[in-house]
């Protein structure tokens, strides 16, 4: 497939990926200025910026109907900020608020342990701009994982911090599995060679990573019921409102 137009299924597949990246980036960004120490504040907002960059590159492919060349910020913003909530394809994990740093850190780890596998699946995509985006994203994911692992190496040792992190894991695991919940269009994307395989084929690798990291077996967790990413959690509306705050102040502003 080249710049010849996206089928509805492929479009849905790309939006699910983009929406996850976008909301993960936005959620991380909420820690700017309030992360536990200055250096971590900078590192975490860099990671947030990377995720937003991934989202922008995916939205640009959708906005350009397969060819992101010449797609400008307004077209990306249209998808990122002005879409009707019913048209979003994000998963539960990235919609949930995180008011506790341990919670945000465990989600960061869980998300990036899966995201790396997700980019691998499209690294040889027949949709060339997607394969190109994967090259950049993969180079950044390596750092995201090292960052999350580095912190967990230190914090899973202390007894108080370990308790907090495992409580967060307990809370997050049922929704984390929603990451692998496919949109109905995924089959079409796989058939067209846009992705090498359905994302949930990576589930065993991911659960293995969770087990090695936390000593907890995610397959013992009852996942939140899959919904094909068709409806939004209660946490979505307030999140979208926060994201649209600046636009709401002045819809014509440019910066």
């Amino acid at each position, binding site marked *: 497939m080249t710049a010849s137009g996206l089928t509805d299924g492929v479009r849905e597949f790309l939006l699910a990926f983009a929406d996850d990246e976008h909301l993960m980036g936005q959620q991380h960004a909420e820690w700017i200025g309030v992360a536990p120490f200055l*250096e*971590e504040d*900078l*590192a975490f907002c*860099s990671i947030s910026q990377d995720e937003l960059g991934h989202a922008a590159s995916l939205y640009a492919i959708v906005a350009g109907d397969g060819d992101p060349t010449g797609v400008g910020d307004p077209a990306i913003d249209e998808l990122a900020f002005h879409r009707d909530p019913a048209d979003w394809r994000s998963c539960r994990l990235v919609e949930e608020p995180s008011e506790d740093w341990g919670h945000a850190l465990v989600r960061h780890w869980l998300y990036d342990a899966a995201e790396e596998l997700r980019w691998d699946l499209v690294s040889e995509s027949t949709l060339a701009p997607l394969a190109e985006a994967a090259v950049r994203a993969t180079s950044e994911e390596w*750092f995201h994982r090292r*960052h999350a692992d580095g912190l967990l*190496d*230190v914090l899973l040792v202390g007894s108080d911090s370990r308790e907090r992190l495992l409580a967060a894991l307990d809370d997050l695991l049922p929704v984390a599995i929603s990451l692998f919940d496919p949109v109905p269009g995924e089959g079409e994307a796989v058939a067209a060679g846009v992705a090498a395989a359905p994302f949930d084929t990576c589930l065993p690798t991911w659960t293995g990573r969770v087990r090695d990291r936390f000593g907890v077996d995610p397959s013992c967790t009852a996942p939140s019921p899959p919904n094909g990413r068709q409806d939004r959690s209660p946490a979505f509306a307030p999140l979208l409102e926060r994201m649209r705050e600046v636009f709401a102040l002045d819809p014509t502003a440019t910066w």
Partner: protein
Amino acid sequence: MKRYEVFLKKDGRDEYRHAGSLDAPDPEMALVLARESYLRRAEGDRLWLVDRKDLIIGDADFVAPNADKPHRHNDGERIAVRRRQLRKEDDR
């Protein structure tokens, strides 16, 4: 948390220069955090980190006696003054 001193260098030019310091729980996190605190905008290609406890420190009292040795300041000022004087004498 430990405190690390950060040194950066551009490939092919300059020497390592002190860029600042940072707090991190261990060497691995120090590397990760230094990259995002000091190398966000390609400020260098190479990075050194030194645990502050490993620094060998000369304090102010140790250094102070050398502050009062003007004869070591080889700025040529005294010679310049003398030359100006000689030129004036020649002109007369």
